[in-house]
């Protein structure tokens, strides 16, 4: 059986101030997988990935990259690793092409091999025309693509994408998804993705782990996770304004504003029943849509503090709405 692309056992991180960021997590990412590592801010995602790519020192535990223990031969393990961090981490004053070729040099890649590879990546990522410009002149989306090109220059077998599409417009985000799918499917690159766009994780990833307060609280397939969802919330746009939410037996209805209702529907419930009840009360529905994507609802319910789990209250669903596209 092939070694996992990434294997983590008992990974612990305690920072100097005593904060325990990771509480002995275990995680496996198979070769060729497109894996989502999700969690709220401060949950331990970046600490985990930071340890994997040597930016953070672990307190205890074992990390193996394609079977190579980072404590034994980190240099060898690093050859298999490409990292796209959350924040821009290149010299803003360097030329685009120089940033990528310099990174190739750090991996000991000869220039005659690095140049054509760099050209291909820049063309694939739509940066070829910008190759001679200083990196600071690029737009936010271009800077993200530059970091992807840089991470791929040495042909890593495992690519870590830490919020790669943050601040990127929808059109560009979707073209980046296509590119990531392509390198995963055609080149067999294993990918670990962290993102706040849960639609992104749902669309791209086959497996998922959710981390919260330094612990893995879920580690399963994306399909398996989504089947656990037993409630969906729909937003109903109304023809006439309402002063109060109507009573709909068997459903939970919340008045969002005068022209909108939120209807929570449990798995297996007949939606027609809700519409019939609304029609009887003279409520006309013009259109409906999901309040948030399905994964987002699950995520919020899993990572909310215990006293907020009874339902997806308005306070916890607000940020989810903001991040949904």
């Amino acid at each position: 059986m092939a070694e996992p692309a990434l294997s983590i056992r008992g990974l612990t991180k305690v920072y100097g101030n005593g904060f325990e960021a990771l509480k002995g997590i275990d995680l496996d990412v198979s070769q060729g997988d497109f894996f989502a590592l999700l969690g709220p801010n401060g949950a331990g995602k970046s600490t985990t990935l930071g340890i994997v790519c040597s930016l953070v020192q672990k307190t205890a535990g074992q990390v193996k990259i394609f079977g190579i223990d980072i404590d034994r031969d980190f240099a060898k393990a690093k050859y298999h690793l490409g990292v796209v961090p959350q924040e821009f981490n290149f010299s803003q004053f360097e030329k685009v092409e120089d940033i990528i070729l310099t990174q190739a040099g750090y991996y000991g890649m000869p220039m005659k091999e690095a140049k054509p590879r760099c050209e291909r990546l820049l063309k694939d990522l739509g940066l070829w025309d910008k190759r001679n410009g200083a990196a600071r002149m690029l737009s936010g989306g271009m800077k993200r693509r530059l970091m992807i090109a840089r991470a791929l220059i040495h042909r890593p077998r495992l690519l870590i994408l830490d919020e790669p599409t943050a601040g990127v417009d929808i059109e560009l985000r979707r073209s980046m998804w296509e590119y990531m799918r392509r390198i995963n499917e055609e080149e067999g690159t294993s990918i670990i993705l962290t993102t706040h766009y849960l639609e992104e994780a749902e669309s791209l990833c086959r497996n998922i782990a959710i981390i919260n307060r330094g612990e893995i609280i879920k580690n399963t397939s994306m399909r398996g996770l989504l089947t656990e969802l037993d409630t969906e919330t729909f937003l109903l746009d109304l023809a006439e304004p309402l002063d109060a939410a109507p009573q709909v037996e068997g459903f939970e209805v919340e008045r969002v504003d005068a022209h909108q209702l939120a209807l929570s529907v449990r798995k297996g419930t007949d939606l027609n029943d809700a519409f019939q009840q609304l029609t009887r009360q003279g409520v006309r529905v013009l259109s409906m849509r999901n309040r948030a994507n399905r994964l987002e609802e699950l995520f919020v319910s899993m990572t909310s503090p215990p006293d907020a789990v009874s339902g997806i209250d308005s306070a916890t669903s607000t940020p989810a709405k903001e991040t949904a596209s």
Partner: protein
Amino acid sequence: MNTRQLLISLWTMVVKEVRRFVRIWPQTLVPPSITMTMYFIIFGNLIGSRVGEMHGISYMSYIVPGLIMMSVITNSYSNVASSFFSNKFQRSVEEMMVSPMPNWVILAGFVIGGAARGLGVGLIVTVVSLFFTHLDLHHPFLTLMVVVMTALLFSIGGFINALLAKKFDDISIIPIFVLTPLTYLGGVFYSIDLLPEFWQKVTMVNPILYMVNAFRYGILGISDIPVSGALIAIAAFIVVFWCLALWMLNRGKGIRS
């Protein structure tokens, strides 16, 4: 990494560092040349003509080696300090940390880059000095050895400073409050024979005195102190500083949480 890959990564580091200071040449190469020209004009020509000779050599010729060495020291130090700290500040140091490059290659890359700037500026200052005086190179090999070793030593010092620095102010404290006074008091402008006995002894603990005098010996053939001792001291400092910098880098001091 195999030897070829190590050499490629080291070359990449050095090229990146040299490209940086060449790209911003108006900030890195021109100002020291102008400052030293001012020293030559004011201290060498105007004041020096009234000072007369020192150890039988014109005052202008006497101060040239010290001024060259001063340029080498400050530029080697500040190049690495500002370059590495900028890498920390912009987080581009992570590019190196995630790569398989060993830490000694990272350190060597910055140190060679810093020494390259120090020696480059030293060469420019030497050429400028030739407009003001004539220099006989008494011991070319020794001169080269001392200046290269000094550039390397202060480049390593700059690296340690940048590792420890948390803000930009921290990389200017040592050059302003330590290097400049030690350089001025290290016999650049005078022979320590002119000092009272007590201050002569105090001056002997200044490491820059040894570098300036060894370099002056290489160019002019005169020195206030034994040159062999100076060479051993510089070499010993290089070894100690190199080991300290590498140890700090391996521990992730200032760059890993």
